[in-house]
């Protein structure tokens, strides 16, 4: 799944700087004095995780910390094989997924960068700063920094490196108009950002044909994903709306909650210049992202049990009122040998970068110590559910049937699968030292390991295998991925 790579990268002549390191790219005006925030972030992430998602975050932070309003854009492949894109200022990104229609990402004059993530097996991204010179398709950027007003990038899962089929098409760039093209109105003016009216929350999200729901497997995650407009409603757009509120608040002299001015309580002198929003803005855009809820529709014909929760209410639950207590989890946390990074995060002695903060461990003394093992990452189910890997898990439709679950040696991770392709007790995920092992528990349909590097293979029953971060394990129609907090 992480065999997504940048397979083509054509500099677009013009004013500006374009940079590439591996599967990370950035373009920047590069006009400001001092080090360029985008290029700095690119170097930093390329040297640590190399993750496109981390690049987008690092660039966003660098841009927000930078007083100059620099226009720029960046893109990179994320740990999960998607393409993360960020634009800021007047820069524009045009993205096409699997030959589909091009989607334009603009910050539309916002003070804040805007980012999106795209999934597909072939994604073309054009990052454009401004006016472009004549295109020369002989140009190529394999790494480093060049003068250019943009980049035409192709990312695909095709290891052979296609002769840039999409790149050729995509490399006929439309220069952005002086007024950067606002994305579709639905994006520029998110309804969700309006103060919410009578309907407190979005009604049922419209069903999307190609969105997997509970019972269905995510299938090949590299398949074309139609991005519904709702998904494109970015948090930063919302934040921009907040900013506007903020600015409005400057005029709201009558705001009753306005803090004391300079003449007020001397203890609150620091409040000068603080302008609260005139009204409270909801924390999350209610309609911004409606994942298809994994609600199971109960069969109306089935009977139900209920327990009154009002004082001295009745109990109509079925018998066995004495529930066995949750099996106590292993009392003592696992102790392992490890080393500390400079920020005191406890690490596998074999890693080059801290698993938690990404800082280099190279200069650290290699003196190991015994400590409590931190979580090794996350088990991410294909429906978006994530589980902390601080204990062993047993996955299946009825994992409580497993003896180790009953004994509290492993947590049950219940996976619904109406078609029964997932076994009742299917897969064991064990933490061994600093490593994660998976073992098929003799399931009928077996388990298939898809490694980030090294292809896929079926697990032999009861034969534990060490997997590295990024590995996805198919169990029946469902799948689960092991991801560390950092790369992979």
């Amino acid at each position, binding site marked *: 799944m992480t065999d997504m790579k940048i397979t083509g990268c054509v500099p677009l002549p013009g004013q500006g700087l374009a940079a590439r390191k591996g599967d990370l790219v950035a373009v920047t005006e590069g006009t400001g004095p001092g080090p360029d925030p985008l290029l700095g972030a690119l170097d930093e992430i390329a040297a640590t995780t190399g993750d496109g*998602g981390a690049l987008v975050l690092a660039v966003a932070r660098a841009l*927000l910390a930078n007083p100059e309003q620099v226009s720029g854009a960046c893109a990179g492949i994320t740990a*999960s094989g998607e393409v993360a894109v960020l634009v800021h200022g007047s820069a524009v990104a045009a993205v096409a997924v699997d030959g589909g229609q091009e989607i334009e990402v603009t910050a539309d004059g916002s003070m804040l960068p805007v980012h999106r993530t795209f999934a597909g097996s072939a994604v073309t991204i054009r990052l454009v700063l401004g006016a472009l010179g004549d295109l020369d398709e002989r140009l190529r950027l394999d790494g480093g920094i060049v003068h250019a007003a943009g980049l035409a990038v192709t990312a695909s899962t095709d290891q052979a490196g296609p002769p840039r089929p999409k790149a050729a098409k995509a490399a006929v760039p439309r220069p952005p108009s002086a007024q950067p093209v606002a994305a579709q109105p639905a994006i520029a003016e998110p309804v969700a950002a309006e103060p*919410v009216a009578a309907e*407190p*929350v*979005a009604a049922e999200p419209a069903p999307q044909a190609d969105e997997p729901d*509970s019972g269905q497997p995510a299938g090949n995650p590299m398949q074309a994903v139609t991005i519904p407009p709702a*998904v494109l409603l970015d*948090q*930063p757009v919302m934040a921009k709306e907040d900013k506007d*509120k903020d600015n409005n608040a400057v005029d709201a002299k009558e705001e009753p*909650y*306005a803090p004391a001015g300079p003449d007020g*309580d001397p*203890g*609150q002198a*620091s409040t000068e210049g603080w302008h*609260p929003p*005139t009204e*409270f803005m909801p*924390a*999350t*855009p*209610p309609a911004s*992202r*409606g*994942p298809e*809820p*994994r609600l*199971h*529709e*109960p069969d109306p014909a089935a*009977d*139900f*049990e*209920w*327990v009154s*929760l*009002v004082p001295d209410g009745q109990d109509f*639950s079925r018998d*066995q009122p004495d*529930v*066995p207590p*949750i099996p106590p989890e292993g009392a003592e946390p696992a102790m392992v040998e490890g080393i500390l990074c400079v920020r005191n995060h406890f690490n596998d002695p074999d890693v080059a970068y801290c698993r*938690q*903060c990404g800082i280099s461990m190279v200069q650290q003394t290699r003196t190991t110590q015994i400590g409590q093992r*931190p979580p090794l990452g*996350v088990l*991410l*189910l294909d429906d*978006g559910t*994530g*589980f*902390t890997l601080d*204990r062993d898990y047993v996955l299946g439709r009825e994992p*409580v049937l497993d003896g180790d679950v009953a004994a509290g040696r492993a947590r049950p*991770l219940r996976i*619904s699968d109406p078609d029964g392709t997932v076994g009742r007790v299917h897969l064991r995920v064990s933490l061994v030292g600093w490593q994660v092992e998976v073992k098929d528990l003799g399931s009928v349909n077996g388990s298939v390991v898809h490694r980030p590097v090294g292809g896929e293979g079926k697990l032999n029953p009861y034969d534990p295998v060490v997997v590295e971060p990024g590995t996805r394990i198919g169990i029946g129609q469902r799948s689960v991925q092991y991801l560390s*907090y950092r790369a992979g």
Partner: protein
Amino acid sequence: MQRIADYELVKSLGYGSHGQFFLARKPPRLPVDAEYVAVKVFAGTSTGDTFRRATRELKAFAAVTSPHIVTLYDAGRHDGVVYYSMEYLSGGSLASPAGEVPLPVAARAVRDGALGVAAMHSAGLAHRAIKPANILLGDGVAKLSDLGLAHLMQPGVTLTGIGPVTSIEYIDPELLQGAPATQATDVWSLGVTLHRVLTGQGIYGADLPADDGLLALRNALVTEPRIDPDLPAPVAGLIAACVGPAAGRPTAAEFAQQVDDIQFAMSTS
């Protein structure tokens, strides 16, 4: 979804932790004087044992008497799907209010929610899921809702795959790392909720990515909390204490009192 048990679901009210809320007509069997109730339906299906454990926690939650906690009516399991019902408050929540909420009212709602949390803590319970979406706005009073039950429904879960992943910002990173929920981790959530309400921003600088749970999780784990420097010093100090070392955090009751004091000082100065 149109029905669960004998509830006729009228419309969706939004997502809660690990499930969805619906407005529903009250079935005749409930000895409650209301036409409509709110019903939370949990994602997926659960075993009878899980339902009974959840019921036990809900009973304990329902037994906490506080004007700042929603009244629960019943809990049930229909064809494996677990739900529970409670009073319906028409004002929406702090995350999606039904109308405009003046800032002082919003701050007071956080304080009301904190009083609900304090009542739970006095009863020896932790809430585990405090966030703006779980502070409901009633007539002149706000109430704490949606007890966190994810640890029972799916032990170990940190991303529920339902609702906006940005709710991670309200969770003490210690919990994300597998530590057990405590009263101190609830107070962390109260502090972040107050910050969000007063500034429109979370405490991780740029907002967490809304569409990438793992990235949000990673970001929450590696980013130091940052209090908006423009906040008045007393508010900033209170929030900083909430997201600081657990030993130095105020109790939920102290938090409520301090919000009260700060609001009073500001409205009179």
